[in-house]
């Protein structure tokens, strides 16, 4: 066998390039989900690690014991069901608000002169480089009963008594919209900036009003950007923990907080795992939609 033929069987550079990121993510991103799945079927135990094994070999008998108790609890205990539903509601409403604020911003930035629009876009992204935690914290000082907003409104005579916003769901909405807005603007901008302006000119020449041209040309053509932006906001928002914890108060029930409580307060790892698995199943379809978009984007196949 000559060297050239041998080379076909030895893993080449191409495979090494694929293997490094692939193995890392397989080992630390994909396989952990299987372990979470496994532990979600075990039972809480006072041990370290604090759960029972699901496969045991005792007296030459291999037993597989799948405990469904954690899942039964998820569907019978109304606290969990309410938390899932309210997470989805909060994430969906926040996503819609981000779209309503982010679309016009992305649209107008994309229509600026090329020299100014890069700076305008950078100005949208720049706050995300400043600690997320500290930006959420900034809202505590603004929304507090003695906070800046209430003082300003009372000083102007708009209200007589301070508004209770901090530690209510409204504060959580504000926090989520604030933190995730750049993630909505970025994909929308990337899409809108590529729009062929000749299409709009043609529409105007044929007598379309600006709003007609927008509704029938710009909006449909920016669908991929809208979908990507909404997925980028909604999927992580469903599992958000820090924002509802710091701003939302006890009334803002979200599944991320439930998972955190099961893990850190109750030390019930199997229950936390079951909560995570059901959350993952709920998010599966949006994640797949996002994956498809993002892969096309990275391969440069997106038009």
């Amino acid at each position, binding site marked *: 066998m000559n060297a050239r033929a041998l080379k076909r069987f030895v893993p080449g*550079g191409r495979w090494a*390039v*694929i293997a*490094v*990121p*692939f193995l*890392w*993510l397989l080992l*630390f*991103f*994909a396989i*952990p989900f299987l*372990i*979470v799945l496994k*532990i979600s079927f075990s039972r809480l135990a006072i041990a370290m690690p604090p759960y029972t094994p699901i496969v045991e070999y005792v007296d030459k008998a291999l037993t597989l014991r799948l405990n469904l108790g954690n899942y039964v609890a998820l569907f019978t205990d109304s606290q969990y069901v309410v938390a899932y539903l309210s997470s989805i509601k909060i994430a969906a409403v926040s996503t819609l608000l981000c779209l309503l604020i982010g679309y*016009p*911003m992305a649209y*107008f*930035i994309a229509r600026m002169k090329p020299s100014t629009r890069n*700076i305008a876009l950078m100005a*949208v992204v*720049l*706050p995300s*480089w*400043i*600690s997320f*935690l*500290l*930006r959420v*914290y*900034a809202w*505590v*000082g*603004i929304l*507090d009963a*003695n906070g800046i907003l209430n003082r300003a409104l009372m000083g102007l005579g708009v209200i007589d008594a301070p508004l209770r916003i901090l530690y209510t769901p409204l504060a959580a909405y504000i926090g989520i919209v*604030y933190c995730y807005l750049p993630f909505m603007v970025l994909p929308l901008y990337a899409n809108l900036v590529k729009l062929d302006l000749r299409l709009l*000119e043609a529409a105007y020449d044929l007598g379309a009003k*600006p709003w007609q041209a927008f509704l029938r040309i710009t909006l449909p053509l920016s669908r991929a950007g809208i979908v990507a932006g909404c*997925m*980028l906001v909604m*999927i*992580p928002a*469903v*599992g958000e*923990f820090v924002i509802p914890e*710091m701003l939302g108060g006890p009334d803002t029930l979200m599944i991320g907080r439930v998972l955190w409580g099961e*893990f850190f307060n109750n030390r019930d790892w199997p229950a*936390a*795992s079951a909560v*995570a698995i059901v*959350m*993952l199943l709920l*998010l599966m379809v949006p994640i797949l939609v*996002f*994956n498809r978009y*993002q*892969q096309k984007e*990275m391969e*440069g196949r997106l038009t």
Partner: protein
Amino acid sequence: MNPTFGQRLLRWTVLALGYAFLYLPIVLLIVYSFNASRLATVWAGFSTKWYGELLRDRQILEAAWVSLRIAFWTATAATVIGTLGAMVMTRFHRFPGKTMFGALITAPLVMPEVIIGLSILLMLVSVGAAMGIPSKGMVAIWIAHVTLTVSFVTVVVSSRLQELDKSLEEAAMDLGANRLKVFFLITLPIIAPALVSGWLLAFTLSLDDVVIASFVAGPDSTTLPIKVFSSVRLGVSPKINALATLMIMAVSIAAIVGWWLMYREDRRRQLDMQLALQENG
């Protein structure tokens, strides 16, 4: 078609309100870091005492040092792995497992942090010992952060790789350079700015993460966000405003320097092109 007055008014109103929403909280953070009162919402005169208290707080300084070290090594590893990922996504169009590869590299971008944190901890508790990795501590946080940030580097680098003129690489290969040489001599210098952005993005994401780190942090690896989170959970603390102001300053300086370098690079490239055209003409 030129925009009418109404359209221009709409444009400036939308942008002004949008930017005000994004920047007002940050400006207020800075202003109140100079407030003399402990009640961070009542203005009681200018003072820099919170900066002094911040710099005397050993716990915060130690946590910051832990975070900076983790963020540095996270960014470095994520840039190497993420760049390889970007090469695969943009250049390798067909190989078995491509769909799976794409799913693995894009899913961490949107995966809720509580799920990533829980799953990595459970994985390290179950099989970490067999691989010689402790389930809690700085190494565990580093692994979790690299896993989170690789995808972000891949996104940044692959957008640069797409813009890259492939004829340069092809020309070098026609002249007899092998793929490795082409990568290091042609591709890498051209995509270097994207590697810097990717590294900085991974560094910031790591420096910022509280949720994932909480799952895998040990007693000797309290990171800065964990420390900050525990002190602001119960309300406002002016020392944290001072910390925020220092961070905002660091980010702003980095942004200005980055923008200036990019601007200079662009100018130089334009000049080079003009010169080349003149020589040929």
